[in-house]
Structure formats: C-alpha cells, structure tokens
C-alpha cells in the first residue's frame, strides 16, 4: 500500500509505520475474538441468569492493558528515533556531519504559494544570492545519493511540503523558515503534494521531485534553467525539461 520508498533513510519511518499497524491489527483481532467469545457464551438463550461474578479466566483479559503498555514503549522508542533523526537534530549539525563524512549535498529553497511551489536553486556555485541562481516552478531536481537540504517558507498561507516517496513532510509558514532534509537513493520522477488546506486548488498543488544520476544532474545544472534535455530513465516517454522548468 505504501508508495515506493526512494529515500535512503525512509526505512526509519517505514519501520514505525509497520510496527504500529501490525501491532494494532494484532491487538484488534485478539480483542475482537475475545469479545465474540463473550457475546456468544453469555447470550441470553444460553445463559438465562447472569453470573454473580465474572469467570476468573476472563478476568485475566486485563493483561491486554499490560501488553499495550509494553507495545507503547517500543513504539515510542522507534518513533522517537525516526523523528530525532530527521527533525530534532539542528540542520547545521547535520550539514557539518555530512561534510565531515565527505558526503555531498545540495541546498534549495522552496516557497509555497497558492497554488504552486517555487524552487530556488543556488546554481552551479552552490551559493545563494549570486548571479547564477535560478528558480523553477513545481520542479525539484536533485542528484541521486546527495543529501538534499530544503529550506521552506510560504508566500501567503499555510501549505505543507509532502514527498510521499521520501516519507518526508513539513509545513510551510509565512514569515518563518522551516526545513527538511532527505537523501534520495533512486532515480526517477516522483510527486510532491500539498498537505495543508490552502484554498480552492489545494488538490492540484502538485510538484515533481526529479532524481537524476550524478553526471546527468551536472549536465542539467550546466544548462539550467533553459534545459531541453531528456533522460530515458525518468519515464517511459522521455521527460523533457523545457524553458522555465515545467516538467512535461
């Protein structure tokens, strides 16, 4: 049911999802079976006079509470781990770690507006505020295997930047800068959705995350934003980047 996970660390979130879902399914089914048993065994036709006390065997059902407590503790641990990894560590610290490990990274700024995403790139020099900065509409292009740092803000109302395939989401707020970080591990074209009601066209505020192979990314960057390059692996019908960067 879950969409394909293309993020290197998405498994942290998926672990929590699977643990919580399977856990509640098991508890749910067990509870239901116990209840069906009780409803069947003590129906009036079978048991015309109520017992003066609950059978001691059934009283042991209280153990469900203890099971829940233990399950909750495990869930809390795994969930806090995932959350800590993505959002608690300050961005500067993550960047420092990444640089120390010798990993590569790119930075972009995303501004959410009614009803499109503006992605600002620092250009070839990797620095914002210089001549080679450029902007694209609804298109986030990143190289595979690089750490991607996204600074988020809103130009008007609340939106939420959601990449289902990367298991990452954070709200964008006017007047403030929020952030998220992930590491795409698979090339392809993936959808970005808005996850906070922002007006009439909230359901169409679609962006694309395009993950390119490293050398293709460099090639694209050199000719951005006026690229007309196509890459076979993005889709069956050869996606082209056209002027201004809308993906067709």
């Amino acid at each position, binding site marked *: 049911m879950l969409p394909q996970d293309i993020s290197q660390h998405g498994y942290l979130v998926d672990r929590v*999802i699977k643990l919580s879902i399977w856990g509640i399914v098991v508890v749910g089914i067990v509870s239901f079976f116990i209840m069906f048993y*009780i409803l069947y065994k*003590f129906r009036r036709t079978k048991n015309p006079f109520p017992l003066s006390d609950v059978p001691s065997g059934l009283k042991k059902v209280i153990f469900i509470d203890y099971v829940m407590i233990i399950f*909750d503790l495990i869930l809390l641990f795994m969930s*806090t781990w995932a959350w800590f990894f993505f959002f608690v560590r300050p961005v500067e610290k993550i960047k420092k770690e990444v640089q120390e490990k010798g990993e590569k990274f790119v930075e972009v700024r995303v501004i959410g507006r009614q009803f499109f995403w503006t992605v600002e790139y620092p250009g070839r020099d990797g620095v914002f505020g210089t001549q080679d900065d450029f902007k694209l509409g609804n298109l986030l292009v990143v190289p595979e295997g690089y750490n991607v740092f996204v600074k988020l803000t809103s130009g008007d109302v609340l939106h939420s930047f959601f990449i289902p395939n990367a298991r990452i*989401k954070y709200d964008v*707020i006017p007047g403030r800068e929020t952030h998220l970080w992930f590491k795409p591990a698979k090339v392809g074209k993936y*959808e970005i959705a808005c996850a906070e009601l922002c007006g009439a066209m909230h*359901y169409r505020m679609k962006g694309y995350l395009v993950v390119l192979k490293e050398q293709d990314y460099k090639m694209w960057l050199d000719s951005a934003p006026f690229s007309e390059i196509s890459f076979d692996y993005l889709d069956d019908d050869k996606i082209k980047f056209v002027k201004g960067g809308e993906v067709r």
Partner: protein
Amino acid sequence: MSEAVASAGVIHHEETFLRKYLFSTDHKTIGKQYLITGIAMAILGGTLAILFRINLAHPGFLTNEQYNTFVTYHGAIMFFWVAMPILLGGFGNILIPLMIGARDMAFPTLNMFSYWVFFVSSVILIISFFVPGGAFSGGWTVYPPLSADPGRYLGANLGTVLFLLALALEFASMLMGGVNFITTVLTMRAKGLTLMRLPIFVWMEIVASLLFLFSVAPLIAGAIMLLLDIILGTHFFRVEAGKVGDPVLWQHLFWFFGHPEVYVILFPALGILFEVITTYSRRPVFSYKLVVYATIAAGILSFLVWAHHQFVAGINPLSAIAFSITTILISIPFSMTLVVMGLTFAGGSIRFTPAMLFAIFAFLMFIIGGLSGLPLGAVGSDIYFHDTYFVVAHFHYTVFTIAVLSTIAGIYHWFPKMFGRKINETFGKIHAWLTFIFYNGFAFPGFFLGLAGHPRRYYSALEFGYLQKYQWVHELMTVSAVLLLTTQVVFLFVFFYSIFAGAEEKSPNPWKSTTLEWLAPSPPPHLNWGSFAPVVERGPYEYAKNGKDIDYLPQGKLVKLKQPVSGHEH
C-alpha cells in the same frame, strides 16, 4: 422493591402552547428541543457529506470552492451542532435530573435561555452559508492566515465572520449548560445518592462539562483575536511585511481546546454505552471505580496532548517528542475503560435488543478507532500520516461510532421512558446491522488511502499519478456513505412515527434497569416525581442478584411525601 408510579397529585398549572412547548423551562422539553435541532443539523451535515463524497467519486459534481465549503461545514456542524447538543444538551438535560432524583435543573430559566442561544447560533450558521461572498471554506479548524484574511484568500469575508459568530454563540450556550449540569449534580442529588453511587453516565456528563469549561476559554480568546484580525486588520495571526503575526499560535489555541473537546463528546457517549450494556447484559460495571478514576485521569491528561495535531507544523521538535509521549500515554486509561466495558458483558445474560446491538457495534468500532490513534500519536509515523486519510479514518472511527452509534443506542434505550411507546424491535435490529455494514464500507478504506499517502481535503484524487489508481476506493466509500445516510433517514421516519403512533409501553421500567429514571412514569410529568421523592439505597448497577424471578435491585425507591402536593390538573 416498589415500582410505585408517581402519578398522583402532580403539580400542574395552566400553560399556553408557547410556554409549554417552545419556551419551557422543563429540562425534558429543553432536552428534546436540543435533540430535534441536533438531528436536523445532522441531516444537513450528513447531506453535505454525501454531496462532497459524490464529488470524490465523480470529480466535477461540485466546484472546488463548493467542495471546500461543504467539507468545512460538515466538520463544524457535526462537532458543534450535532454531537455536542445531542450528547450534552439532549441526553444530559433529559437524563441528569431524572437520574439523580431531582425535579429539574438548578437554573431552569438559564437552561431555556441556553437552548435558544444555541438555536440562534444554528440559524446564524445556516445564514453564513448563503451570504454574498460565499461561506467560509478553510476547514473546520479555521487555520489562519487563510482564515484571517478570508476576503483576500477565499473571497468570503462576511461568511467567515458569521461562521465565527455562530461558533461563539454555540460555545456560550454550551457553557451555560455546563454551569447548570455541574451545579445540579453537586447540589441536588436525592437522599442517599453519594457521588460514588452516581450512574456512570452522570459522572461522564460532569467530567465532560468541566473539560469543556476549562478548554474552550483559550479558543474563545483565539476567536476574538481572529475576528479582530479580520475586522480591524490586526496582526495576531496575519503576516504582512513588517508586521509578523504567528499563525501557529492559532493552532495552539485551537487544539488546546480541540483535544479536550473530543473527550467532551466521547465521555457522555461512553456513559450511554455503560448504561445500555449493564441493562441488557444484567451485570454491573466490571469496576466502577476504575472507570471513574480512568476517566478523570484521561480528562486531566487531555490537556497535555494537544500539539500532536501540530507535529510537523513548526513547533519545537523536542516538544513534539514530549507530546508524542503524553499522547501514547493517554491511550492507557482509555484501554482500561474499554477492558472494563468488555468485561461488563462477561458473565451476563446478554439480550440483543437494538440498543444493545448499537452499543456492541459502537464498542467494537471504538476499539478500532482508539487503536488507530497510535500510528498517529507516534511522531515518527505521523510524519507520513499527518493530513492524510488515515487521520480521517481514525476520527470517523472514534467520533462517528461513539457519537452516532451511542446516540442511537441511547435513543432506543430511553425511548419508552421519554415517550411511553416503543420502536419496533425488528426494525431496530435491521437498522443496527445495516448501519454497521455501511459504516465500515465507508470508513475502513480510509485507512488504506492513508497508507497510500492520500492527503486530506482533496477535491479530487485524479490530479496525482500516485492517487489515481485508488479512485475505485472513493467510489466504494461514496456508495457506502449514501446507503448509510439513507438508512438513517428511514430510521428518522420510524423514530418520529413511533413517537406518535408506536406501540404503547405503559410499564415505567420495561428493560428492568436499576437507575432512578426508571422509577418515574413514562413519560415523566413536569417536575418528575409528583407527590413522591426518590430515595437511594444502594449503588447504581445491582444486577446479577441470582434471583430466579428478579435479578436486579433498583438503585432507589419512591417515598410518599408527608404533605400531599395539590394542584389543579392540566
């Protein structure tokens, strides 16, 4: 045990039609008024839902603005104009004085006033739907800046102001009711009725009233600030160059209220379930004290979980961990209450009346609802599930099952008491099964859509490639929803028919239930007890007494008053 019918020597006085039915101070009449208005608003809210569900199955049926408006009003109506008036204003008003042996509420005129304020709030809400500029369409959660500048972003300035005004009036009405409930239960119980002998339903109503009283305040403050933003152009929540407000502050104020609010609705419904389950399984509550303490604990804890709605909304990430912990923690008193509820069935002699069927379904569905809160409360998985259909499925499995199914269980259960007639049992059983099947058909697939990453409040799923393949799920949900509403409409016809022409039920206690309200005649007259006064001798759930001819001991008995009360008859 006496089943003395208190019909002799009731105080009557001449009342005009207006005084008796419209502007009555009798808690039963006021309760029925709340019930009827709540049901009417439920039809409205349910119809809005059907319309936007049809759009989800066939996008283009509505415009996208209409869709957002209907979604907004559906949510607001269901919470504030259906669940609260029915569970608190309706059931609370009708049952509390009867269950504690009082003759009316402590402040009957205030009570009447509270209903009419509520009625006016409903009218204003409906008007807000039709004003020029359109109705508010920013979600029942009214997040700014969308809502703080409605003219600019939504074109709906007047509509938003009226929406907030209706909300404010509804809060005022419920606050007045809450003051009444708390004072009445604390000061007007029958002789012998100590607090630990109260029926669970009464406990639940008191905790709910206290929760509402203490939680609604910050939201009222926030609503005032929002109105000032809209009307006077202040910057509490609006962001403009040089003047930066804080949209997230609204979220805090709203959810500080919003979370206790869902327990305000949940607790009375759980109370109804306990009354119904004990009666039809002929067993006492498995552990009365545990339920009372767990409820109070959950009520207090409910003030400490609110930001689980805001994990990815810009709050301090460390505080998110704290809120995740408290959220998971709060599931524990609830699981205790549910285990107690399940064990209340055990050892009993279960009779599957319509009320009991609805209670069983409510209980089972609520287990699903409560459990589904765990993937959301765990902050790590909420990164993915926030604002997806998983949330929608979770809250429908909690709120709908508990508010609607318990309400219907309560209606079947207390119908003979309130109207002196019965609803046909066979119809009731069919109603229960159909509701159960259609409800699950509509709500359960939501979990799968959530797992697929389908965001909420989307006019159509067809714009996104990763969602298009689930369009058939939307169609399934819509068909189930339509059938669900149809079933309820049929029920409403039967309900109203039975009030006037149902089979008569002259016995005051047809279900052989223990609590005090079953000592009064069916229906209870004005001032309830006539020349008798109820006196309580034991706890509220003395069932399973192992008698062969009678297996229960009523909580109290009626004692004839020393001086007969005289008055002219109606």
